[in-house]
């Protein structure tokens, strides 16, 4: 159905994973184009995973010049000042990733994500935003949604030893095997804006606290560069917490203060959490591209403190 067969070289290289997801899924992977913006530790892990899996192409965007901070948790950047001076994070990461799998086309795109139009995003099957303001995430998500083809949209954010993944597959149909038969499934995803502005009151109490905590931290960090929050903002975040909890008529005890503190003071990513969240994100992208397996809907949270990796389906279905 997907045209040409895998080459002998591909079959040999991808042998062990073809045994997991089959040759058809592998063919679809080799034809997929992935855009990745914002490359910190978690996204570096993600990129490594999809390049190894053998996607068609990966386009990297991150115009930051490499500095000490960018090195943290990012094994794609060798700590050699002579090699990285004057280069952007995307350029350095591109070199490393090409090396991992010569069969994947890895390239760099410069510029500000918020200035690109729909025709740019149309070239991709998957868009992943590693870091960026809520405004940018929202606008890219809307651009993707306007296109006639479905572009899978993901955001990922790791702070301290916590991580969040958001997924928007719009209207997604896939097949899965139930016992011996194959069943058709259909999922409808809310947009990024819809998913983050669901009223809190009807959301079940057992929902991951991280969902609420992350929303507050974003409220506070709006307009700042990633990682520029500090303990000084604690008072401000607590103020926002009070405001949001009141507006949503939920008790303030809903969101533990120490969790908020970890999120705003954790400047550096925790590498094991990056490996875990970057691994889950890659698995989800592989599922969405190959059409195999139940995809995540629509948030995933990991916290190394309790060790749980939990899926949360947060849409306005709670209200209806």
């Amino acid at each position, binding site marked *: 159905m997907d045209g040409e067969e895998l080459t002998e070289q591909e079959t040999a*290289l991808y042998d062990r994973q073809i045994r997991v997801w089959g040759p058809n899924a592998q063919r679809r992977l080799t034809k997929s184009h992935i855009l990745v913006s914002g490359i910190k530790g978690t996204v570096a892990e993600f990129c490594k995973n999809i390049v190894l*899996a053998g996607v068609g192409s990966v386009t990297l965007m991150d115009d930051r010049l490499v500095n000490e901070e960018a090195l943290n948790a990012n094994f794609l950047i060798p*700590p050699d000042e002579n090699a990285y001076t004057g280069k952007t994070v995307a350029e350095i990461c591109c070199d490393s990733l090409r090396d991992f799998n010569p069969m994947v086309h890895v390239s760099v795109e410069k510029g500000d994500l918020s200035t690109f139009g729909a025709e740019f995003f149309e070239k991709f099957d998957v868009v992943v935003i590693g870091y960026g303001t809520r405004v940018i995430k929202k606008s890219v998500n809307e651009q993707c949604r306007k296109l006639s083809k479905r572009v899978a949209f993901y955001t990922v954010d790791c702070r301290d030893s916590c991580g969040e993944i958001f997924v928007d597959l719009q209207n997604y149909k896939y097949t899965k095997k139930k016992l011996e038969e194959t069943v058709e499934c259909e999922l409808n995803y809310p947009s990024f804006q819809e998913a983050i502005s669901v009223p809190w009151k009807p959301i079940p109490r057992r929902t991951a606290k991280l969902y609420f905590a992350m929303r507050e931290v974003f409220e506070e960090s709006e307009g700042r560069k990633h990682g520029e929050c500090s303990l000084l903002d604690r008072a401000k975040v607590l103020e926002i917490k009070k405001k949001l909890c009141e507006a949503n008529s939920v008790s303030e005890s809903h969101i533990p203060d120490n969790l908020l503190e970890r999120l705003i003071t954790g400047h550096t990513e925790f590498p094991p959490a990056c490996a*875990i969240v970057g691994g889950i994100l890659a698995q989800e992208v592989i599922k969405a591209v190959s059409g195999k397996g139940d995809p995540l809907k629509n948030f995933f949270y990991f916290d190394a403190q309790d060790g749980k990796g939990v899926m949360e389906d947060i849409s306005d279905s709670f209200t209806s």
Partner: protein
Amino acid sequence: MDTQHQQSALKAAKVLMVGAGGIGCELLKTLALSGFEDIHIIDMDTIEVSNLNRQFLFRRSHVGQSKAKVARDAVLRFRPHINIRSYHANVKNPEFDADFFKQFDVILNGLDNLDARRHVNRLCLAADVPLVESGTTGFLGQVTVHVKGKTECYECQTKPAPKTYPVCTITSTPTKFVHCIVWAKDLLFAKLFGDKNQDNDLNVRSNNSASSSKETEDVFERAEDEDIEQYGRKIYDHVFGYNIETALSNEETWKNRRRPRPIYSKEVLPESLTQQNGSSQNSSVTDGDSMISVMPSLGLKNPQELWGLTQNSLVFIEALKLFFAKRKKEIGHLTFDKDDQLAVEFVTAAANIRAESFGIPLHSLFEAKGIAGNIVHAVATTNAIVAGLIVIEAIKVLKKDVDKYRMTYCLEHPSRKLLLMPVQPFEPNPSCYVCSKTPLVLEINTQKSKLRDLVDKIVKAKLGMNLPLIMHGASLLYEVGDDLDDIMVANYNANLEKHLSELPSPVVNGSILTVEDLQQELSCKINIKHREEFDEEKEPEGMVLSGWTQSPATNGESASTSNNENAIDATDSSSGPEIVTKKRRLSETKPENHKKEAENVESEEDDDLVEIENPMMVSKKKKRVE
């Protein structure tokens, strides 16, 4: 937060990684990024092409080099100032003894086989060093923490035994493709190309078993000047035609079974294959023995393609011809190897022809290779996630945060919304023969079993001992080591061939043996119980060890014993319910269904090559049985 404190603790820690494969590459990277600065790594393997899709520290140019060394060099490129020491060696080597293990603060396993895992577990217990153990299969994975006296050891729970099939299912009544593979690989391939002196059940036993075995033996002998193609056809007709006819004559066998169809070469192949023969001679030998293939000469390119009966028959004959034409010297001592292309082609073809005969769906070379080579599914993402989880547990172990230790399961389908499920570790099992010295019981026929049987089938295969020593009271019956003098070696060798009851210090009903492994610093007692008879199908070893593994007697319950297959399924599931209910957690109880899910995942073996034949299938079956 105590981040500063934590960083200096990691910096000071000395850790040992065992395995630099799928999990190992990810683990070494994550350890280095997390701030570990003194890492030792042992791996005996060299790099292969099929590793490159996930073992991201390796490149095509590294194929053939030591995994441990290349992994070290690769990580030093992005963390140049840390200390990584690599050992290209087997972790079971005597230099890695308890004293060696004692220098580390924690041991991290990323292994691919049960044997090495058990060995490391014992050394960790002997050296009293905590162990973080891991494994993955496809999207499933698990990480567990083993700290002496605090949590269970790796062997507190029964591990699924390597899968075996009743002999008659393989020789006479296959119902699954895997049965045909086992037949093609362990019987036919071994008979034709392996050690001629080995026992082999290839020929079906007909009811009138007087039929001389001498006669059939000769079929497999190739006369000096016999044409190879004629010889190949003779073998073909014998195993796919004559043997099936013989089996059909046992009417009793086929009462409730589908009757197989004998297949003769003249029905499927043209009179002469000389044409193919000519071309195959030209196009084959280029890249050494492991690359010799019949596929190009037969116009077969895609290993995922299904071959029909004729194609399989051509591959069978041509592969056999090529073995004699190009690899004659190896015949007589070949063993099946998944990286030997011609062997894989031959086994695929033979299994498919047999499958056709028994009405079992045929499989592609790609699939057949996976089954024959026990290739376990592996993806980079699960290994990366598991490596992250290992480091999180390792940090807790260093901080001695006992209450926070978790075993974590990576699930393919969420269970109660969880994709990563942490569970409280179990307490040590008080009846574990490894960490709590509980005596084992061995039922054995002391008049008919030799000491050699006990050493091979129990001490080595079941107890996983590497350098065993066996004592009966004060009398030393057997011992292995470099420092033994010739007289002792001769004595021990003589003992090996004696029946237990005839040993210098006779081992009879009620005897207590002490079995030790000095390297593993493990010692256990075995109570001997004499028993006359053993069920050939259920207890093919002719002895039953309990306190170590499931007792076959209780397995029958969950299976309808209408045919052999169910008995096998029951064996797979036996690590299930009974054992689970015996276990206790340190605290907090989880819902029952989680526990079962966890059990299923835990039985998974790992990354590259394992003994159990298809872990995914095992766990599925298990669910159904429950």
